[in-house]
């Protein structure tokens, strides 16, 4: 295990490499492909999620609209948005990262970079892990925001303006921090494991497709394990 993830263990030491525009370019591309292209999907799912939660709480469990929105705020920020936002990111991007790295390694591109004095950890792994961390935060934030919007619109209808003005009743600053912090941990974990799977995959054509499914499976599993541990501790 240590040998497998060895390059990733020293990841923190490579952070100064972000001063290089070449490394920053890879990071920005990673953020673009991972979060920007998924933002519409996440916004749509978040909107539907907010509406579903509020309607269920009101219609099925007899909660008032105000109470339903407060539950949505807490549940959405603390649990649903970080988990679902990160889940969508893992499903879309973990497989791409793992298979891309496995392919590059099989084609001798790691070797080519190293021979030209370019550190693979700095140039390939750091931007991918950071990119997935930032993307998880962005996507979770986007999902939380649109879930609130969906909930407000479906509960208040034309009076949505009033609910928006009273938003502090639904969301507390601490919950926002929990949402962003949790999604950052989820994103970092997903990035590390996706890169790890890309690194451990044998450089054989038959192994490359397996890397994609393995990365998604491990990524999702780790999300739930971390969420479970988080719930136990905090």
């Amino acid at each position, binding site marked *: 295990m240590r040998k497998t993830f060895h390059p990733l263990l020293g990841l923190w030491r490579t952070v100064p490499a972000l*001063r*290089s*525009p*070449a*490394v920053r370019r890879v990071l920005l591309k990673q953020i673009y492909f991972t979060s920007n292209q998924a933002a519409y999907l996440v916004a749509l799912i978040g909107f539907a999620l907010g509406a579903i939660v509020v309607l269920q709480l009101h219609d099925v469990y007899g909660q008032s609209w105000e109470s339903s929105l407060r539950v949505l705020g807490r549940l959405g920020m603390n649990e649903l948005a970080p988990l679902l936002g990160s889940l969508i990111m893992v499903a879309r991007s973990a497989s791409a990262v793992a298979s*891309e790295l496995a*392919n*590059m390694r099989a*084609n*001798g*591109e790691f*070797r*080519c*970079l*190293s*021979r*030209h*004095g*370019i550190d693979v950890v700095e*140039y390939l792994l750091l931007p991918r892990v950071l990119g997935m961390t930032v993307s998880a935060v962005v996507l979770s934030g986007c999902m939380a925001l649109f879930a609130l919007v969906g909930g407000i619109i479906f509960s208040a209808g034309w009076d949505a303006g009033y609910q928006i003005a009273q938003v502090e009743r639904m969301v507390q600053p601490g919950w926002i921090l929990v949402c962003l912090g949790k999604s950052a941990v989820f994103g970092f974990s997903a990035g590390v494991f996706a890169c790890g799977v890309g690194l451990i995959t044998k450089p054989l054509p038959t192994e490359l497709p397996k890397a994609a499914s393995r990365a998604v499976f491990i990524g999702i599993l780790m999300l739930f394990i971390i969420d479970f541990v988080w719930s136990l501790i905090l």
Partner: protein
Amino acid sequence: MTVPHGEAVADWVDMLADEAQKQWFGRVAVLDAAATLISNLRVWENLILPVWRRDNVPLAALEESVNSVFDLAQVAQVQREKLVMQLPAVLDKAERRLVILLRSVLIGPACVIFEEDQWHDLAARTRDSPHARLFARLQQSDCLIVVGPSPAPDGFGRVAIVERG
């Protein structure tokens, strides 16, 4: 340098490149037999990557350098514009070799390491081709190493490091 067949050649090239990088960081060009390029970068990004990572210079300055290397190779404007925007996957073998030659000259290498197959292919090209012009420029480097399984030809020892000047 004479080494056994197969993977050993690549391992020796790795080792030599590693040592050379310690002495001339960022000024080492490696021309492998497979003409490896980074598959998710366009040709122009492949060309500038080693220099960009080493010097952190603005892209405008790098563009001038790239143009001067194309001028040295005497590649037609239309052909170079088409080439730089392509992904490595669509390049044929000759184009890949041209790109790694361009990349190597752009580095301004103090040390050039060839895998033997690449060396033979380039040495066999006619003098008025872009490949030959760039190959000639690389041969002017301070340190030139050819790694392969064949016995060293006349004039070379088992380990041959060609030094100029």
